[in-house]
């Protein structure tokens, strides 16, 4: 019972934190984009525009909820929920710092900590596609459908490379448990041991979360924002939330797998190190968005299958040989 | 694990198997028929995993792994064939696919 209570509390906390972070991250992104493009970004609501997220939230919630006439109603309503739920659930297995002692109890800073932590994470994120595909299909609109199909194909393709690069880390750490993986990086981060793997991993996660330059599924100029074309109001908001939460999840995962997680010089507490690294990744996401053009769709698939996957496999083999030899 | 619980799992698996079979016999969309086959395979997998737990033997789980792999391959090929079928008609109704007979 007690365990259950702890998990419940942790879950609620996590959801609240994630949603808050999401909202402010959006704001920061817009600000940064503004600076990149030599403009100010949102600055009207509150000091420096800090209340903008609240305004956005109100707008999204009160906006009319339109369901297209031909849409498959159940699926249409289900899709954003699935997206968001999966995105939030994925974070459940991510630890942000070593276990802490609270009220004489050792509490892990992740909701669950299974032996096969990475696998659970991959399993959960692999369900994220459903929201997009179902949403695109249920809208019964060709833009939505095309966007959804593109998105599905893209995510599946890059999931392979992602998985392959993760296996490299697993080999190095000798465990599937995220705590163990972080512990294994106490002396040297895996980004130095396995740089190719990191590059593949990073490119893959950018593609996984449909960000520039891999934002084909949404591609406002081509597909009128893809799978979410027909969505409005809170349902659209849920897709947005899911996307940004996913970005958080992936950044955290990258931190854990390659940047040594919460490991860092002792002058800062572990959780700060962790957050700093995550923020670094988030910044790169924004940076990429500001600087890179979109890839053509066939190029994107070519890149995924003909470059990323072979390189990932080669990297895997090299890593394995490396581990066996040394 | 007691025998009663094992039997519970087996009965569940049997029911799933029968539902899959029913779908195979009742539905006319090849896509759904293929899904029903997956249900049947999954039912068999459940029985395997229950037995693996019962014996404390990993082999049952290994077999399940193989079944999942094979199912994936089977679905890939099955869907390819269905796509081929669809290319020449709007809807593939297996009842209409009966040029070969006698």
């Amino acid at each position, binding site marked *: 019972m007690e365990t259950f209570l702890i998990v419940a509390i942790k879950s609620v906390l996590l959801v609240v934190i994630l949603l808050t972070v999401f909202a402010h991250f959006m704001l920061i992104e817009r600000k940064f984009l503004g600076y990149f493009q030599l403009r100010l970004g949102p600055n009207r609501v509150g000091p420096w525009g800090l209340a903008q997220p609240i305004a956005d939230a109100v707008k999204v919630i009160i906006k009319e909820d339109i369901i297209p006439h031909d849409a498959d109603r159940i699926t249409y309503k289900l899709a954003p929920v699935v997206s968001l739920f999966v995105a939030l659930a994925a974070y459940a297995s991510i630890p942000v710092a070593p276990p802490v002692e609270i009220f004489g109890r050792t509490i892990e800073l992740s909701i669950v900590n299974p032996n096969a932590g990475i696998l659970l994470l991959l399993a959960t994120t692999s369900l994220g596609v459903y929201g997009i595909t179902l949403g695109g299909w249920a809208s019964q609109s060709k833009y939505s459908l095309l966007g959804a199909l593109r998105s599905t194909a893209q995510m599946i393709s890059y999931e392979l490379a992602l998985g392959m690069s993760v296996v490299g880390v697993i080999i190095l750490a000798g465990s599937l448990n995220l705590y163990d993986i972080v512990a294994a990086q106490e002396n040297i981060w895996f980004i130095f041991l396995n740089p190719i793997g990191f590059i593949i991993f990073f490119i893959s996660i950018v593609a996984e979360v449909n960000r520039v330059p891999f934002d084909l599924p949404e591609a406002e100029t081509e597909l009128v924002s893809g799978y979410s074309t027909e969505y409005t109001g809170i349902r659209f908001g849920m897709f947005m939330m899911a996307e940004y939460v996913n970005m958080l999840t992936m950044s955290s995962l990258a931190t854990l797998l390659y940047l040594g997680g919460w490991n860092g010089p002792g002058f800062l507490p572990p959780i700060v190190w962790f957050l700093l690294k995550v923020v670094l990744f988030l910044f790169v996401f924004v940076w990429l968005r500001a600087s890179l053009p979109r890839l053509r769709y066939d190029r994107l698939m070519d890149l995924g299958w003909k470059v990323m996957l072979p390189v990932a496999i080669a990297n895997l083999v090299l890593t394995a040989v490396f581990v066996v030899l040394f | 694990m007691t025998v009663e619980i094992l039997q519970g799992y087996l009965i569940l698996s049997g029911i799933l198997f029968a539902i899959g079979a029913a779908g*195979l016999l009742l539905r006319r969309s090849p896509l759904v028929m293929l899904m029903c086959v997956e249900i*049947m*395979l999954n039912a068999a997998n459940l*029985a395997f995993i229950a037995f693996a737990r*019962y014996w404390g033997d990993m*082999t049952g789980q290994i077999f399940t792994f193989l079944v999942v792999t094979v199912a994936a391959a*089977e679905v890939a090929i099955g869907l390819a064939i*269905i796509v081929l079928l669809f290319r*020449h008609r709007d809807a593939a109704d297996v009842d209409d696919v009966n*040029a070969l007979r006698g």
Partner: protein
Amino acid sequence: MSNLTTVDLNFFAVAPLITLAAAGLVVLVLELVLPAERSRPWWYAAGLGGIALALYYVALLWSGPAAGPAASIIGAGLWGRVTNGISVFGGAYVVDRFTLLFSGIVLIAAFCTVLLSTARRDEDMPGYVALVLGAALGMCVLAGAGNFLTLFLGLEILSLNLYVAVAFERHNAAAKEAALKYLILGALATAAMVYGFAFLYGQTGTMSLSGLARGWEADSTVLMKVGLGLVLLGLAFKLALAPFHVWAPDVYQGATAPITAFMSVGTKAAAFAALVRVLLALMPEESPELLLPLWVLAVASMVVGSLSAAVQTNVKRLLAYSGVAHVGYLMMALLGMNHQGVSAGIFYMAAYLFMNIGAFAVVVSLGKNGREGEELSDFTGLFYRRPGLALAMTLFMLSLAGMPPAAGFQGKLYLVFSALGSGAGGAALWLVGALVVTTGISAYAYLRVVTTMFRRSEAQAELADAGHVEAAPAGLVNAGEGGGTGASVAGEGPLSWALTVVVAVAVIGTLYLGVAPQSMLALTRHVLPLP
């Protein structure tokens, strides 16, 4: 790493499998690296070479260390003579003479299939060759399966490759339909069979065929029986035993003839081998009633196969039904589960290999304008166009009908011998009776093909009439031999060398096994540890 040493990794024992896999990859890679217009011969060469090499390894494993320079090149000293059989990979795969014999049959069938396919003009034939190699690999795995995992994988490797191979002519509606039916029904059978494995595993806690028998010692053996039943019917499906044969005619008709030939011979050989192994592992000592359904299936197959064959006008379909009947005959070999039966079964399979491949080769060779010569009408007057081909086909048909001096006759003879000698009493007589009755019926089907070949087509008859108007004896209308004039109707060019080779091999094989069965029988003796 040290764990690996607990498993017997004898890669030499699975050299044929490795060779097949490697050849498949080579074919695919060749397509990538060679310019399209010049690579065609190389695909076939690689495929055929791979199969031939695999056959060589089979022979090597059979006969033990070879002598001479060739032996030193491939390191013959490492090869053990496989007399009593060895199991490798922790018992997952059994390499004994039984496996080797069936591998041989499968490989010959695959070789002929690739040869038959050389006439095809599609551009992605490397995929096709690789599929054949893959299916052959699956069949070889199936023949030597030592536990359920290997058995299941072998079965699925061969099935998956064949599903694709059946659908290969993707613009042909019949091919697609056939593939869909094959896949859905095949998956159904697979699911049932996996369930059977689950039950057997549940009772015994082991997946190894050698450990299964202990399950019979439990108080209640329902799981064993049901498991055995489900596994039997899964194999019965692959063997196309009635009523699990429903897919076979449609699939055989829809697929291209070389694939059909391969399917009908290879799949059956491999599934039969697996059936023998399963029965060997599971045969309860004193309960023959457990196998009663098998005999019922056998009789049903004979009856359904021969009756349906009699009314077919499509030769591929006719051969499909004939295959159903032949599998029914083949089951007689298992009546007593003794040496004699197994030997007769292998012999029959070998005979079936030659006569069936031969018949399909003729079907292939009659193809023109992109379609195969599968209708009975394509055979009209064949004798006057291509007498050699017609005579070869006559031989195959007579052999399938079980007439001397062809191999089919000897095959049936040994099956009858083994059934009568099995001590199965009533069941044996029933099976023999069904064999005899249905042989009579199916002879009608085969002779229809033969008489069609010897009947002139209308065009030929006109030519013949023009040349011969004289009154026949007794004033009977007649259009017998046309001397030289009839032959001029022949409009086709000569057979390609590949088809000629296949037909010749089939003719020689059919005749050889029919006239001198002793050598083959000697090979099949004592290949399994049986009573």
